């Protein structure tokens, strides 16, 4: 199914259809992740691939137009490159450990400790979260920074246009459509759900990143059903920008505090008397940092794209 989708994406020239199919592709991948036990990843892929990416692509298409020209040059050279690369990969996989077999080196080294000891060492049931936020917490900090860097890029490229009321005389609101009524009722629950995901990352799938995306999605829904102006009123860009940087600093700050308390950077065990508690607090804080940054960055990027589209 995935292959079929991919091929169709290549073939189709209506970019709009391509983007929609891409969102399907993402959902499919996410389902596959589910099958492969990667629940957290599935969660993220759904939120990001089918959600944010698709929305951003649509935002771009609004501005750039949606039809692709017939490719002018011959596809032979790229084809060769691709086939070659693929051949190397296939050749390389011949010696790969077989899919799913538990005696792969992957499952023999390093990972057993995460699986066997993390509930004791870190004290939370979701191993993905403990690896993510504690064992490899630094990677996750990097990830947060990557998101932040993307924000910097988008802001410097397209910026958020100040919303100018084009029709100042229009004070009387048109009757609310079905969509608006429905969305309004839904949004609070979406937001709360996001916060739920944020704070229950320790126990089930989810965590700061997913929560951030969902939260942003809630705000985006508001912007879509009502107007960008309303959304900006609810979550003013200025405030959100501060929050974005604050999230990063919260993450880093947690690390620095653990340094000041005598551990190494991001060693949460020293945060409280009891290492387990320390880990718990640390993870809570850094996840919060991630969530704040991601949510605000996603919102800001969305603002930037849409305000750019509405400006012209």
């Amino acid at each position, binding site marked *: 199914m995935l292959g079929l989708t991919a091929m169709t994406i290549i073939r189709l020239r209506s970019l709009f259809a391509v983007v929609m199919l891409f969102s399907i592709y993402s959902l499919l991948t996410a389902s596959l992740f589910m099958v492969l036990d990667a629940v957290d990843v599935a969660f993220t892929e759904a939120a990001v691939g089918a959600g944010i990416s698709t929305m951003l692509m649509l935002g771009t298409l609004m501005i750039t137009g949606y039809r692709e020209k017939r490719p002018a040059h011959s596809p032979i050279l790229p084809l060769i490159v691709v086939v070659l690369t693929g051949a190397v990969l296939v050749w*390389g996989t011949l010696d790969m450990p077989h899919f799913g077999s538990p005696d792969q080196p992957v499952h023999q080294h*390093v990972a057993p400790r995460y699986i066997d000891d993390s509930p004791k060492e870190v004290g939370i049931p979701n191993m993905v979260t403990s690896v993510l936020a504690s064992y490899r917490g630094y990677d996750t900090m990097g990830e947060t920074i990557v998101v932040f860097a993307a924000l910097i890029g988008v802001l410097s490229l397209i910026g958020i246009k100040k919303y100018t009321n084009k029709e100042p005389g229009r004070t009387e609101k048109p009757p609310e459509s079905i969509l608006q009524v429905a969305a309004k009722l839904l949004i609070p629950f979406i937001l709360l759900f996001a916060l739920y995901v944020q704070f229950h990352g320790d126990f089930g799938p989810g965590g700061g990143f997913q929560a951030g995306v969902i939260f942003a999605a809630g705000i985006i829904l508001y912007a879509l059903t009502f107007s960008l102006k309303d959304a900006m009123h609810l979550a003013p860009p200025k405030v959100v920008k501060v929050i974005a940087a604050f999230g990063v600093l919260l993450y880093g700050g947690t690390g620095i505090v653990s340094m000041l308390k005598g551990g190494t950077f991001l060693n949460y065990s020293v945060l409280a008397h009891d290492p387990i508690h320390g880990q718990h607090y640390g993870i809570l804080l850094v996840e919060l940092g991630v969530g704040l940054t991601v949510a605000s960055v996603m919102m800001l990027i969305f603002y930037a794209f849409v305000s750019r589209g509405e400006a012209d």
Partner: protein
Amino acid sequence: MMEMHLPVLQVIVPLLSAAICFLLGRGKLPWMFATLVSWVTFAISILIAIQVSDGSTLQYELGGWEPPWGISYNVDQLNALVLVIVSGIAAVVFPYALRSVEREIAPEQHGLFYTAMLLCFAGLLGITITGDAFNVFVLLEISSLSTYTLISLGKDRRALTSSFQYLIMGTIGATFILIGIGLIYALTGTLNMADLAERIPQIESSRTLQAAFAFIVVGFGLKLAMFPLHLWLPNAYAFAPSVVSAFLAATATKVAVYALLRFLFDVYDVNFTYEAMQVQYLLIPLATVAILFASIVAIFQNDVKRMLAYSSVAQIGYMLLGIGLVNATGITATLLHLFNHALMKGALFLALGAVCYRIGRTSIQQMAGLGQQMPWTMAAFVVGGLSIIGVPLTAGFVSKWYLILGTLENGWWPLTAAILIASLLAVIYIWRVVEVAYFRERPEGAPDVKEAPLSLLLPTWVLAAANIYFGVQTDFTVSFAKGAAASLLGGAP
């Protein structure tokens, strides 16, 4: 107490400062802050270098988890050298940025600009210092994303397309690296470099391992603009703001070369790289062609920035050639050139930035007669140029000397010839600028220009002087490079 934390401070200081910088808004404040940070970072890198100068290795366990379960930072002479050069260049470029950026970038974007610069800077440091294969990828992306941003800030609209091109190429490269790391991981179950180094020899014959190797080499090849994967580089450097060109040319490709070295010799080992993969037979032809071809192309460029960009491609060829020589001298030469090339390209691009500050562009015709009008700027350019050519008493000579020695040790005469021919080509392209600047009159009606302001000149001259200093006083660089080369070839540290 703080000493223990130096390795991590090296990266998180600029990293977190970026977030603070973002909050500082417009005006001069972000600049002042960023400059301060770059100096602090430089100081940290010096302290680290002092600690490892005796050949020891520092290890820092992030999160308090010992590797391979947690991520660790490892510093030895090799990356200490790279850290010093990256942060040193930054410490010079940031002060320079103020005036140059005022001229080239819209005021409301200054805060963002410095934030992106800090991010890029921190990312590069992070790639250099980390001891975890996947962490390399993450930090690589931090620096890449901010690099795309920085390039796109160039005035010309072509900055956008070149940034986009770079984005595509860079992401493909990063994804290749990701594939490579994934394949290695599949075989070993670990991501820590030292741990990998222990486990890889046990499975040397695996084809998967070789495929992974190919992907990593190609991936980093894209990032470091290995010929023929260099196509993104000339445009990116040519259209980026001057400060960015200078900073990237001096640091970004260096770090990629470093990372490649790390993977070739530390993660994989020497035997694998040279004997199982025969990497030298790939590198040497490519590097030679790069050196010659890029130098020739450089000669025909009208834009001096682009000319220097092509020159960079050629210089990267030198570094790869050093790797391909399969001997300690070759690796030493690569490391030396890594360091020295940063100095010379930095000086050249900064001088060019000063020119751009005054005349607004960098096409060669526009530089006519500048030798008189901007004597100090052009003198710095000449010093950098001499270094590129490899004239004795400049830093460029030292690394070329070692490179040639390396070729001679193997008795590979044609390569010696190629290096010399490329030096000649370098003479030609540098000379074109010198001739126009010094022996042409300022065109009629062209506005009179003054010497660049001191805040631009001073950093430029710091680097120009460094070119001479490190061409004369080679103890520091050579001893570090030799120590690092020995440890690289000697297997895992």
